[in-house]
């Protein structure tokens, strides 16, 4: 393929993706400008006058920062211990720690609520984060802090979600570092103390990875909505504020106030997140070019099996990860039963599972919904993987051609969908489709569109570092062996990014299953319902019928199990030296 035709293909993918990723936001912004009479910059200045916006911003910044910090505190020791020692089944742990990231937030919320509720694990330990009695109540009274229990539950839930970021970024780095580096620093004057080793070895090597994971944690916590709604019901973040009012935004001469709220909040959110994305991109670049790696097997075997401290840390982390999921699993078997004489009490029952499979309480049964989910996930994969690959390869090609600014711009642009409010994109997609191709609404594969937009950034984040890490000698060796172009590509390039490609694929499928972009589509037809939609549907209904909640938990359990299986299989296909990537 000639360079020109390569760039032509790259150009088309870049253009197509950037249009998909940015047009909805542009459409929505243009419409809101029309409805409110304010430009985006005016909306920015008017932010403090918008109902509830300032409080929401304060809360969002506070919880996002605290969540990111907590993610580091919890995740870093786990990543360190997992990467440093020779575990028998590192693939199992990696898969386990990856599952929370793609769980639908509502499932995570339910799981955490089960832990913090009356009779939940924390409550039995005397910590009441929900009703805020006892220790937490004292804390609230002494400090004047409103609802500290809800805040603590929320940041722990965010840390749970984002744990996998820390593991994925840091663990491979620790696992593959040449032990000679550590030995060397220990023999040098500056490295004789722990602090010295931290300053001169560990921080330079791990710092970018940790900060990268932390900035992504900040970003995801910032845009969190469902967890805030359920775990901190007395507070709003910018996203939950917009979600509350978003349905009536963008309509001429109707509820102009909601349009103002959405416009101002989304502009502030966009700017803050753009800054966070720029930082993420910069840190990841530094992280991926920082040092030379040796194979993972070599590094781990040098340190041997884990000691008791490492085991304690990793198993505790596994417990932390499993706890909400197990809570949801057990809740699927708890059905409350009423009695005129003795009131109500929960009983063990499989009726919830039966109702979930039969679809009596939802638009369809779990089996059919799962089939839809898998179909959409497959379609998403077929589009998102090549698109993300092409984008990553374009960024890398620009870097190799010494065009860092353009590479950086494209890098940040691919992350753009993560900076944009779901409400805005939903509105923009609706408006855009209405204007251009209204018939598209009837197209049953329309939900694939938001899935693709949201999964491509992750494909890029996984593939790009892997591409950067491929040394040119691999290709050069193939050339001097006179291998044909396909063989040269395979041995000199693809074999090194096959592992990350598998990771990217499993992430894409898992995100699609978890319906990450579901909220983007305001309009959803019943026949398209996926597993995640069924869970959401059941959880949103009035639960007078005692079977609704266990049925929702049953559907959520199926979703969790499929996701774990997916990641576990992906880990098995990755060879030991492939590293984690994202």
């Amino acid at each position, binding site marked *: 393929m000639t360079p020109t035709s390569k*760039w032509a293909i790259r*150009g088309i993918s870049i253009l197509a993706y950037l249009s998909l990723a940015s047009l909805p936001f542009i459409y929505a912004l243009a419409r809101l400008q029309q409805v409110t009479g304010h430009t985006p910059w005016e909306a920015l200045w008017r932010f403090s006058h918008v109902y509830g916006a300032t409080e929401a911003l304060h809360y969002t910044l506070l919880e996002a920062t605290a969540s990111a910090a907590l993610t580091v505190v919890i995740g870093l020791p786990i990543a360190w211990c997992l990467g440093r020692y020779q575990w028998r089944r590192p693939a199992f742990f990696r898969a386990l720690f990856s599952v929370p990231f793609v769980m639908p937030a509502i499932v995570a919320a339910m799981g955490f609520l089960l832990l913090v509720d009356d009779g939940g694990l924390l409550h039995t330990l005397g910590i009441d984060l929900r009703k805020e009695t006892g220790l937490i109540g004292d804390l609230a009274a002494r400090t004047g802090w409103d609802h500290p229990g809800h805040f603590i539950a929320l940041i722990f839930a965010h840390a749970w979600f984002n744990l996998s970021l820390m593991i994925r970024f840091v663990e491979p780095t620790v696992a593959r570092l040449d032990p000679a580096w550590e030995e060397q620093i220990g023999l040098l004057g500056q490295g004789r103390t722990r602090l010295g080793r931290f300053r001169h070895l560990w921080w330079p090597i791990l710092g970018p990875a940790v900060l990268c994971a932390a900035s992504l944690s900040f970003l995801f916590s910032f845009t969190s909505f469902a967890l805030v709604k359920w775990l901190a*019901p007395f507070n709003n973040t910018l996203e939950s504020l917009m979600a509350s009012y978003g349905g009536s935004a963008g309509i001429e001469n109707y509820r102009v106030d909601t349009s103002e709220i959405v416009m101002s909040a989304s502009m502030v959110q966009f700017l803050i997140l753009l800054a966070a994305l720029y930082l993420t991109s910069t840190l990841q670049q530094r992280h991926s070019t920082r040092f030379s790696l040796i194979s993972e097997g070599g590094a781990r075997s040098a340190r041997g099996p884990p000691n008791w401290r490492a085991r304690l840390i990793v198993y505790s982390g596994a417990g932390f990860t499993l706890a909400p999921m197990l809570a949801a699993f057990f809740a699927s078997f708890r059905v409350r039963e009423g*009695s005129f004489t003795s009131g109500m009490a929960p009983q063990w029952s499989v009726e919830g599972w039966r109702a979930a499979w039969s679809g009596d309480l939802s638009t369809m049964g779990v089996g059919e919904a799962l089939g839809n989910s898998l179909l959409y996930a497959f379609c998403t994969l077929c589009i998102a993987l090549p698109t993300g690959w092409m984008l990553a390869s374009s960024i890398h090609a620009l870097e190799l051609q010494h065009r860092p600014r353009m590479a950086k711009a494209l890098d940040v642009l691919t992350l753009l969908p993560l900076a944009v409010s779901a409400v805005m994109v939903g509105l923009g997609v609706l408006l855009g489709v209405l204007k251009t191709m*209204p018939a598209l609404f009837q197209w049953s594969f329309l939900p694939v569109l938001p899935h693709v937009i949201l999964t491509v950034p992750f494909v890029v984040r996984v593939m790009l570092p892997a591409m950067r890490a491929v040394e040119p000698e691999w290709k050069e060796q193939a050339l001097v062996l006179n291998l044909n172009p396909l063989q040269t590509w395979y041995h000199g390039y693809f074999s090194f990014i096959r592992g990350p490609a598998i990771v990217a694929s499993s992430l894409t499928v898992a995100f699609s299953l978890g319906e990450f972009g579901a909220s983007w589509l*305001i309009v959803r037809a019943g026949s398209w319902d996926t597993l995640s939609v069924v869970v959401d549907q059941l959880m949103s*209904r009035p639960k007078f019928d005692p079977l609704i909640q266990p049925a929702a938990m049953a559907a959520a359990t199926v979703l969790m199990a499929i996701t774990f299986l997916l990641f576990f299989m992906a880990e098995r296909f990755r060879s030991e030296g492939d590293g984690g990537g994202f």
Partner: protein
Amino acid sequence: MKLNALLLMCVLLFAPLTGCLEQTESNDDCSVLPAGHADDGVLRILTYDITALSETVTDEFTNQTGIPVEMIKVDDAGGILDQMMLTKSAQQADLMIGLDNTYLPTAIENCLLQPHAATPVNIASSASAFYAGDQAIPFDQGDVCLNYDEDALSEANMTVPTHLHNLTEEEWKGKIAFPSPVTSSPGRAFLVATMEYFSYETEGDAMAWWTDMLANDAIITTGWTEAYETHYTGGYGEYTEGYIGDAWMTVSYCHSPGVEAFYAENYTHSTSLMLDHSSFHQVEYTGIINGAAQVNGANLFIDYLLSTDVNTNMPENNLMYSVLEGTDLPETNGYRHHADVPSVVTTMTYEEIDANMDAWLDAWKAATQQA
């Protein structure tokens, strides 16, 4: 060089598209609009998650008429109106099901509905009193009122309030949860009820009462679910995740205690606060969307929805009263026994709601922000 060309293409692509958005959609008269989408024989229903419209119900309709049904679901009744407003130029659905009488005037004013051809014969006057025109027809009804936890009041030795002003007193501080009228349909209905309630007082000021309620730490939630499940102690919320249980009173339906008993073998400790004019008679409507393609199917579905077979099941399938004359809640498990029926219903008319709803919402926001 190559990427500069790419960027230029992006600009050229975006520019004409943003120009498109400057066209204003307007339809000055309420004439019937042409179909917003192609008629492929499928009836598309725009609704929120109405449990009465299960797959069984829609499949039966298809069996009877040969017309397949697709549901387009939004979050709540307000979402139905929002969706119709947003897609005015190219409506994607044919039939709407779920707008209530606080939203209907806005929908009609904005020409979002068109006359239907259904002629049901036995609609109860309680359902048809509010609106008897041909652009919408009621399919279920219920009274929105305050519910309270009998056991909680009894344990605290508190008397049942005899006036809404009682709720601004110290003993009720932080113990009432209201779904916001801005974002919740029952919340909106209750706001209208308070407007009516205080209009019967000399110098009655509903907004002052709301300000006082917020000053008394009333809990405002986004939707009914949060208020009823998370905060209210009188209902099933105790057995759901995330229960806080800090409110002994909330807004729901006067027959909600009956629903509780229906599912709990005739057990409930929730009951309704029966103060004259403090409840709002909510009626939910169905109507053909202006710009529908499958008008015939829509008319047939309206008839089907109002048929005895389907509509008499509203209490069990949709937890609301049927609109058919001579029907009532079932007696099973104390459903009817525990359902409260207000003796004095709202007198708020279509014209009053049409003229004032937006102003009431703005006033509420201002009043509650003051607190």
